[in-house]
């Protein structure tokens, strides 16, 4: 066997190991959710009893404010011409909710969560294996590891895990660990089962610096969108639970007690999505420049281009939603989810089913 083949085999092996390790991390995260939220639920139960003594009368009256409509006569905090994005609850409502959700600053509190610690350690291990897999493939091929769908998916998953782990350094985002590790496992399985491709050279049309620029930024943007997708899902669940809490009903979904408020999730995913949108804008333009160089036109409405445009427009709508009355909160979360579904569609169906100039899937 040649060096290339050996490395390629190693890469595949590492990839498999990484996928299995992520799977273990996923289980550990889920375990953490279950055990930690049981603890939290017990605390919640106590506080609910107190609440019935002091605050029960006010809670149902504020149900509407979850939808962001009640006018706040008592809130006179100044605003810059009322330009605030997002919605909020007035302090008493927030105090009620604070009992049931994690702190919105998403800082580490130093409380002991052995399952979460194990999950993180395993995830880091998986990430290292994954990095080794992608790197050995890149060395084997002698080029950047994003020349076909297998490589987009595996490198994309690496970016997802990397962005997530990097974000964990600054914020306690362990509550999305289950979703993120789950998505990474799915991406790796999809790559290995769906689009297996041996190491090979690039066709001339892909031999360009623009491949490095355009695709790396696209993969990075997709990684960010994956994380905000996970957060949007949690936001929707949390918003439902908050409504139930404010209505005085049993909230259910106890694991959400370890997740910050829907408002905090929305704020953070907005900022991440803003970065993702900037990346995607760049992807789109770099793609146009590359297309201009290799096909002589910067935009030709090839199916891949159509979907890149659709994704861009959906996220532009998302950026607007945050500044549009009636579109914050749940609706903007749905827009974020819609955007991500378009990203997935663009990657899977458009690459494999639609005929176009971008037929580099390697299938």
């Amino acid at each position, binding site marked *: 066997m040649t060096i290339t083949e050996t490395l390629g085999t190693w890469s595949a092996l590492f990839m498999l190991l990484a996928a299995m390790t992520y799977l273990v991390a996923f289980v550990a995260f889920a375990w953490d959710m279950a055990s930690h939220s049981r603890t939290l639920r017990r605390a919640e139960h106590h506080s609910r009893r107190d609440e019935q003594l002091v605050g029960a009368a006010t809670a149902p009256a504020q149900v509407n*404010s979850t939808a962001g*409509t009640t006018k706040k006569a008592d809130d006179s905090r100044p605003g810059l011409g009322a330009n605030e994005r997002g919605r909020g609850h007035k302090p008493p409502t927030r105090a009620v909710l604070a009992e049931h959700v994690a702190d919105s600053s998403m800082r580490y509190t130093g409380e002991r969560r052995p399952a979460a610690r194990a999950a993180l350690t395993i995830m880091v291990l998986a990430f290292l294996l994954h990095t080794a897999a992608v790197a050995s493939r890149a060395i084997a091929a002698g080029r950047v590891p994003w020349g076909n769908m297998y490589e987009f998916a595996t490198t994309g998953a690496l970016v997802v895990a990397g962005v997530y782990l990097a974000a964990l350094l600054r914020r306690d985002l362990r509550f999305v660990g289950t979703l993120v590790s789950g998505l990474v496992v799915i991406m790796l399985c999809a790559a290995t089962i769906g689009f297996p491709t041996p190491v090979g050279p690039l066709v001339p049309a892909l031999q360009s610096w623009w491949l490095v620029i355009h695709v790396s930024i696209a993969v990075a943007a997709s990684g960010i969108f994956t994380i905000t997708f996970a957060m949007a899902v949690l936001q929707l669940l949390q918003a439902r639970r908050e409504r139930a809490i404010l209505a005085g009903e049993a909230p259910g979904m106890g694991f959400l007690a370890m997740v910050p408020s829907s408002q905090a999730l929305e704020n953070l995913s907005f900022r991440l999505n803003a970065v993702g949108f900037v990346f995607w804008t760049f992807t789109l333009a770099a793609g146009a420049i590359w297309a201009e160089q290799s096909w002589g036109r910067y935009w030709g409405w090839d199916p891949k281009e159509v979907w890149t445009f659709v994704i861009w427009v959906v996220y532009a709508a998302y950026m607007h939603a945050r500044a549009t*009355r009636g579109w914050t909160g749940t609706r903007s979360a749905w827009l974020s989810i819609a955007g991500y579904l378009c990203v997935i569609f663009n990657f899977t169906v458009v690459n494999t089913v639609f005929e176009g100039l971008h037929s580099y899937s390697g299938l």
Partner: protein
Amino acid sequence: MTAGNPSRPSPGVRKAGMSTTASSRESSTARGAGSSSAAGLGKSDVELPALGPLGMARWAWTQLTKMNTALFLLLLLAVAAVPGSIFPQRIQDPAAVQDYIDNNPALGEWLDRVQLFDVFSSAWFSAIYILLFVSLVGCVLPRAAKHWRAWRAEPPRTPRRLERLPEHRSLALGGRDGAGAPAPGDVVADAARLLRRRGYRVAVRDTGSAAPSVAAERGMWKEVGNIVFHLALLGVLVSVAVGSLFGYKGQKILVEGESFANTLINYDSFTPGTNYNPDWLDPFSVRLDRFEAVFNRDTTDPRSYGAPLDFTAEITVQEPGAEPQPETLKVNAPVNVNGVKSFLIGNGYAPVIRVTDGNGDVAFEGPVVTIPSDGVYTSSLVLKVPDARPDQLGFTGLLLPTAVTGPDGMPRSVDPGLANPQLILSSYYGDLGLDSGVPQNVYVLDVEELTELNGMLSQSGPIAIDAANPVHELPEGKGTIEFLDVKRYVGLDIVYDPGRFGAFISFVLAFTGLLMSMFISRRRVWVRAAKGVDEHGRACTVLEYGLLARGEDPRLATEAERLSKLFTEQWGTADPPGDPAAHRSTNRAWSGPNHD
């Protein structure tokens, strides 16, 4: 920026209506009614005013320039683009559209009527983006005017109660060790200087009073970025329009040794922009000197053996009255002649063939362009010889660059390189129908009216000619065909797009604007100084300051800390900076503004 008085919020005014007073008024109506469901997009959330045509127009304009409408139009645009990826599009592949219509006559005709094969030039798609851009202009221009005024105005008045701001701190200055406290007026002047150095624009207020203050603001470029971003999008649209009006695109196949002069008749296909006059074509010419294709010869990996690695065309460009200029053309590296770009988009083999007719005259001699159909360049060939006498001749078949005979006795190509080129052809005679005046595809031979001479199934078998056996005698004395050589050809796209540059500049502007708009923070700071007493009852100067961000700004607390540090460095303090209550409010501010 209407909030002249920042202590009186008007939640969400700008959220619904961008900037016009009419729309803000209207959005407060919506809020008053307590409607939460985005207030319906297409339908209005106000009573239709009976105002006559002018009033109606104003009303329509107000509706169009609302944020809700922009959002709705954006989503509509996304949805409207989707069919463009599902159905074949004429701009992509007119033949595929025709196939689709032929295969689904009823549905196809109906789809065609609603322009689903021309989505991106359709009336409905155009309507959406034109409305969107009208909305954009109606949105952004008033916003720009407003920002211009805000820029020229001073930062807003200092609120009476700074402790209500999302970030609030206070410091007690002086009074320690019997030192005199600095005068409030001086403190404020120094604070103004410090803030200006941090990039704030400042206005000192109430000088000479007991509690002078300074109002400061930074991040005015954020809004500029937003406006530039939106206007630059308009620039992109205009540039694209310029390109499609005044540009052109043509295709030309060029065999090694051949030249191409840039005039209309020389193109294989030519698509002018709507307003392009072919007389404007720049009269240069291009000769293909040599074409080289490099295939993977690394035998270690059989799967990618023979895969194409590199295509290079050596060409000579000749402009009128200038020296011939040698150039290299590659797949991702076009050659630019005065803004007209030539792109290498295809390549293949052109076998050189000589056909002698039944009368013994040479009826055809030259390269015949073939179309590669797979990775080993199995290429299909069609040759029509209308000049052959007594009968016109036609040939169809394959060029196999590296021919091998398989175990089944069928020859096929095993490699894209020219190791053993062979032609496998059928031949026909009869009327080729070229004189009927109906234009014909050169790559298709309609054999229905012709009589077969050679063929896979015919008695005489197919023609198989190669270097060892270059000549084949046609049956019935119809002539001979001779395989002389193989040349390479390139397929060129020749494109002129005068909007390209404008589109690029617009994009750069849009991207810069986007970065500015997203990552600059707009903040206001108010600092007030007054005589007071510290917690030990000593006389001091109390420096109080509050910060406010536009939108959600998680780093507002960090900025407050920075200012605290600056101020303590400037004056030293009687007490550790800040009070615990202020720190608690920091957390609250992070979780977002307290407005609906």
